[in-house]
């Protein structure tokens, strides 16, 4: 029983000659591949393939510049408005401190006079 199994395994796994056909097919495929022009990583400058990427890059650059300019303009507007508010706040604060001082001064004068 076990001898039968061994025999059938040996028969199934015996080396088989691939034959002339396989060698010929492999050599033909290698020859065909080497006859193709070599593929570079990027097309040369001026190649029509560059048009779209160049346009996209230029648009992205313009959008980026416009965004940066707009951001800077907004920052300047906000900064100038904050500066105006700061000065106004300090004016109001000083006015109220002045009012307190004047009232205290008046009261002191009244007390000294009476």
């Amino acid at each position, binding site marked *: 029983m076990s001898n039968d199994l061994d025999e059938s395994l040996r028969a199934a796994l015996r080396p088989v000659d691939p034959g002339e056909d396989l060698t010929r097919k492999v050599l033909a495929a290698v020859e065909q591949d080497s006859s193709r022009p070599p593929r570079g990583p990027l097309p040369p400058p001026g190649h029509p393939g560059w048009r779209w990427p160049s346009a996209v890059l230029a648009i992205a650059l313009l959008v980026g510049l416009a965004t940066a300019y707009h951001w800077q303009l907004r920052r300047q507007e906000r900064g100038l408005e904050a500066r105006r508010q700061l000065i106004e*706040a300090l004016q109001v604060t*000083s006015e109220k401190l002045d009012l307190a001082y004047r009232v205290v001064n008046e009261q002191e004068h009244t007390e000294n006079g009476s």
Partner: protein
Amino acid sequence: MSARGHLAMLVPTLVLAARLACAEPPGQLLLPNFDSLTGKSIQSVNITLDSTLLGLAASFLDSSKPDDAATMQVVSGLRGIYVRSYTFNKDFPYPTADVETVRRQLVPPAWQRLVQVHSKEQANVDIYISVDHGRANGLAIISSEPRQFTIVNIVGSIDLKKLHQLEGKFGVPKLQLPDGQ
């Protein structure tokens, strides 16, 4: 411990963390919304400058100009300026409840009243200062006149002498205080 038990412990911790994160810095008041006054006033000033906006404003000051340099001196060390001021064309009764919510925050030991004045012309000015470890970190002014109502809250390290240096600049009135006061 069950998932519900973990959740029961986590929620109060998160609430406390959120409260701490939202807590006002020392010297800062919670100002009420005076929207009702805006419509009745002929002029209103509503200024909210937090530390970010103060920094931005300071970056637009020119240190080579004396006026701007003096302002930069005042602003350095400040973390916020909040002003609410309303002017009316006739004597106007202010919403005392709103004013009281502000006054209730101005209590010792955090706040000390520096000045309380009442003039014959019914101008009342209260000035409070918040002091922490011997350093002033907040100033509050509540001024009520018959036709004007103002609350100012300055947060941060305040040097009144520096504020004094601003007199006569940018339309800031001459305080006529002797140096050092």
